[in-house]
């Protein structure tokens, strides 16, 4: 039983298939495929089967079982689960077991979802390729010599290969949308504050957001509805009432205006530009008006992001000191700082150390104003630019990433890797919402490589964004699965 989460859910509810059979076949597919893909770090076979049996018993007895009853969902390994470990794909947290569930996980389970396991990621969500995972690189199911994107690459690869009905990712600068694009699935980053960050290991606290990676927009809307909403355990969670996207999903959006920034059409591969042109045609076909908008600060986004995100990371990751939890270096140390420094040097990988260094530098005496304060000022300009653009359009259309997936080991320079996120980081900087949708393929290398387009919408217009994305998905079509 593979395919859309909603279809699996309905078949279980109608007793056409048992939750146990769904979970068992999922476990079988993971066993067959994941030795190659390496999308999972841990699979919760025992607890998942036990949960499935409980749900089957509830359904057989006619008890209420929840709107996600029986569907297997994978969780990125930086989102806390009581079951198993929560490692962030880092040696620092190799043995860490969370004593609590993240709010998002708790809400999924309360709705009957079955957590099937934890997915590999770039270490501490710092990367765009899943090559910095301490447990080894994740592979793209469309071409196993290529990266799945990152940092939620394990989640995106697992959904694309049908190793779960859907997965959770986290997105600080594109980490849900970019891997979704590169693996040919849907990746939705809700507006900042829409889904509780309680239980999400903090990277950039003013940027981080949990979101779903799914086969379809409808699945994303359903998971969003289940997870979104205020949480007393996260004071940055938005108190505004969540607009339920499902009642309006099937309605064709009227008077739709799609913003096309000239700045999103520079430096893309020919296949990405072609996919973007076809996506524009699909919008015209549903009666949307395409309007030119200006986002001149698009290029400055990476610089802004690589001040703010490392600064916040250097502060957030200061908690890993080898004392209360996490990796501790062994041996004798002259003083407590030597113990901290040795533990952190052993526990963190190269990219995490680079970002901590960068963040510490931009916050250090003499550089704070020139880097950090200035980046926060540019952040306001970027937000103002989006506000102005959204007076002319409902959503902004562009590519999710400038190219399709590159070969593993193909990008080694850190700055080149950072520049892959040029279209996604500004969404987080401004706190707005964005979704990546499958939009075509790049066949120029001899293998079929998925391409994603991104739609961006104003903060808290999440439901409208999902409605527009659903209309696009129905019109554009062309969904495929990797062989």
């Amino acid at each position, binding site marked *: 039983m593979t395919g859309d989460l909603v279809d699996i859910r309905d078949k279980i509810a109608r007793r056409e298939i048992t939750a146990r059979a769904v979970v068992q076949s999922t476990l079988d597919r993971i066993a067959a495929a994941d030795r190659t893909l390496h999308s999972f770090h841990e699979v919760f076979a025992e607890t998942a089967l036990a949960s499935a049996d409980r749900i089957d018993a509830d359904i057989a007895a006619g008890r209420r079982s929840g709107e996600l009853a029986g569907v297997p969902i994978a969780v990125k390994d930086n989102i806390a689960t009581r079951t198993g470990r929560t490692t962030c794909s880092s040696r620092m947290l190799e043995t860490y077991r969370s004593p609590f569930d993240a709010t998002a996980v708790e809400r999924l389970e309360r709705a009957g979802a079955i957590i099937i396991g934890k997915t590999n990621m770039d270490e501490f969500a710092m990367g765009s390729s899943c090559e910095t995972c301490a447990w080894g690189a994740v592979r793209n199911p469309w071409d196993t010599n290529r990266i799945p994107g990152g940092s939620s690459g394990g989640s995106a690869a697992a959904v694309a290969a049908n190793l779960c009905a859907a997965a959770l990712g986290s997105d600080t600068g594109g980490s849900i949308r970019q891997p979704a694009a590169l693996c040919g699935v849907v990746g939705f980053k809700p507006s900042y504050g829409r889904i509780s960050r309680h239980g999400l290991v903090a990277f950039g606290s003013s940027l981080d957001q949990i979101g779903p990676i799914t086969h379809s927009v409808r699945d994303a809307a359903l998971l969003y509805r289940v997870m979104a909403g205020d949480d007393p355990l996260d*004071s940055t969670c938005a108190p505004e009432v969540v607009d339920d996207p499902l009642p309006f999903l099937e309605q064709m959006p009227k008077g739709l205006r799609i913003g096309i920034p000239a700045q999103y059409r520079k430096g893309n591969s020919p296949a990405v530009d072609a996919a973007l042109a076809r996506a524009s045609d699909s919008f015209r076909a549903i009666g949307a008006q395409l309007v030119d908008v200006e986002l001149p600060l698009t290029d400055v986004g990476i610089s802004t992001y690589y001040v703010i995100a490392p600064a916040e990371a250097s502060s957030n990751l200061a908690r890993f000191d080898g004392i209360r939890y996490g990796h501790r270096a062994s041996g004798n140390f002259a*003083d407590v700082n030597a113990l901290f420094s040795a533990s952190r040097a052993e526990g963190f990988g190269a990219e995490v150390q680079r970002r901590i*260094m960068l963040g510490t530098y931009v916050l250090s005496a003499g550089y704070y104003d020139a880097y950090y304060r200035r980046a926060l000022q540019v952040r306001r300009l970027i937000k103002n630019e989006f506000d102005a653009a959204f007076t002319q359009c409902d959503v902004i259309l562009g590519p999710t990433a400038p190219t399709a997936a590159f070969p593993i080991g193909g990008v080694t320079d850190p700055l080149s890797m950072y520049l892959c996120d040029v279209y996604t980081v500004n969404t987080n900087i401004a706190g707005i919402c964005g979704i990546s949708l499958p939009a075509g393929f790049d066949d120029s290398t001899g293998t079929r490589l998925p391409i994603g387009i991104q739609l961006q919408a104003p903060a808290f217009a999440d439901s409208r964004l999902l409605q527009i994305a659903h209309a696009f998905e129905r019109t554009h079509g062309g969904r495929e699965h990797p062989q």
Partner: protein
Amino acid sequence: MPNPAESLTVNDVRHVARLARLAMVEDRLPAMRDSLVAILGHIAQLQAVDTKDLEPMAQPLPMRNRLRADEPCATLSMMEVLANAPKTEGAFIAVPKVLGGDSA
């Protein structure tokens, strides 16, 4: 545009590593310096943006501090808290003897 970070020295990198509490072997300092210079060189484009009179934006939501009612609630048990400690002794987290000069 000139790269103001070009003047970053290996000594500066050693200082930042100390602030970040990252033990960094001497061999690694030059490579770390070069990669920081390259990234900071790109980031230098921020200096060209006119930010006059702009209020810094630390986070995206127009939010104030939110306080909760000060009510007793369930917390983690001592066992749960100690379960992830690298080393424990009885009800305590054990650490190696670290008395000495504070290098910071």
